[in-house]
């Protein structure tokens, strides 16, 4: 009975699941930044901005091994403060899950099933995610290993098909947009896929003890950057900058017009598969984190009973979030600010408090 009792993933699985998580809904939404050909600068700049935060996340994991953010906040901020922070984080996780469910049901309705109402689509998406979330983290690890291979395969396939059309004019002129706008876009990218990985901290005891969390974070960050750049270059090559800007789902549109060797045409079916597995991963992690939050708020023994209610709640929330697709896209800029407390403020407070706490604890036996 090797490593089965433990609910942990290995180093490699950790990297892949974090990457897949971040890839999840941004793949379907596209990195839609309104700066056309300069988006790649924003993607790279955002990665640079993200690095210190990822290091803080990793430091929190190192300081409190096998504890999640809820437990940490309860240790550091006392019972009531901890519960308040836990409630906030739980809300964020459920809300994020709802956002992703909405993104996907919207996408599927628009792309392939215009007559089907969104609720059944959202329901089976939610049920699948709840099933994976109520199994353990190891299954999520295996799931990400398999899915990332499928995604990479499809991505390289489509990228290779687009590369012969690539012209350097597509990304010229560089820095056409003012710096302020590019910085704003970078901040959107930081908050939308990159720093959402804070949800992983809410699950706790995910990584095996011997792997270094900062390496997991940085490796997956570089993987994410590679993936987003590939998506960006592919889309801008095949669609052109205006087309990429105005379409809701640029990757999907790209897949429609891609053609490989004359026989593989109209591959949007396979591309939506690609999106979907990323989306499921994201919903799963969010639901797991939310269930863990409920578990620590009410001091339950096991988070599994809370998986289904949180998933159902996310489902209900997803239906009332927006009244139409335009609203969904407009929300992204608000999201960047809305998510800041959860992605930046709470982790930084916990990190500083954690450093002080561990220093004190280490000194105590000496005195």
């Amino acid at each position, binding site marked *: 009975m090797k490593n089965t009792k433990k609910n942990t993933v290995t180093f490699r699985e950790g990297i892949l699941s974090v990457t897949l998580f971040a890839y999840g809904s941004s793949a379907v939404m596209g990195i839609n930044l309104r700066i056309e050909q300069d988006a790649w600068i924003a993607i790279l700049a955002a990665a640079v901005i993200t690095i210190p935060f990822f290091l803080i996340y990793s430091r929190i994991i190192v300081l409190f091994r096998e504890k999640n953010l809820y437990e940490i906040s309860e240790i550091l901020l006392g019972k009531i403060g901890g519960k308040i922070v836990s409630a906030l984080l739980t809300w964020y996780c459920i809300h994020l899950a709802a956002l992703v469910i909405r993104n996907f049901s919207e996408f599927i309705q628009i792309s392939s099933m215009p007559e089907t109402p969104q609720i059944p689509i959202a329901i089976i998406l939610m049920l699948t995610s709840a099933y994976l979330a109520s199994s353990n983290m190891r299954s999520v690890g295996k799931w990400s290993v398999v899915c990332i291979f499928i995604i990479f395969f499809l991505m390289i396939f489509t990228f290779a098909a687009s590369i012969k059309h690539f012209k350097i004019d597509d990304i010229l002129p560089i820095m056409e947009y003012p710096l302020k706008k590019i910085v704003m876009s970078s901040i959107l990218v930081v908050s939308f896929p990159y720093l959402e990985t804070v949800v992983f901290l809410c699950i706790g005891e995910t990584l095996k003890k011997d792997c270094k969390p900062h390496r997991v974070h940085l490796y997956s960050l570089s993987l994410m950057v590679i993936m987003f750049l590939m998506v960006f270059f592919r889309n801008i090559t095949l669609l052109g900058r205006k087309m990429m800007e105005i379409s809701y789902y640029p990757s999907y549109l790209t897949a429609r017009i891609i053609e490989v060797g004359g026989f593989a045409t109209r591959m949007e079916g396979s591309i939506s598969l690609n999106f979907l597995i990323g989306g499921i991963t994201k919903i799963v992690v969010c639901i797991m984190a939310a269930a863990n939050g409920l578990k620590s708020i009410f001091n339950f023994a096991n988070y599994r009973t809370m998986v289904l209610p949180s998933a159902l709640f996310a489902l209900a929330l997803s239906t009332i979030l927006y009244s139409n697709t335009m609203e969904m896209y407009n929300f992204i*800029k*608000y999201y960047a600010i809305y998510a800041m407390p959860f992605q930046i403020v709470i982790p930084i407070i916990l990190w500083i408090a954690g450093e002080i706490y561990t220093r004190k604890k280490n000194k105590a036996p000496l005195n």
Partner: protein
Amino acid sequence: MVIIIILVLFVSISIYNWFTLLKSSGTLERIVYFSLTFISFVILILHSFDVKIPSPTNGIKFVIESFFESIKEY
């Protein structure tokens, strides 16, 4: 149609979880479980009857706009 789907979903979930919940016999756990399920059920049913439910999105937007006025123009 959608209402039937929602009803079937909740009925089957309740039946399935009746047995799992019986095993873990925490009263608080049951209360949290059923209240969350019930809230989502009500929201879904109301939504499928086209009742306008205030969305958290609008609240978030309102709060953020009152702090950062310039975001509207971006």
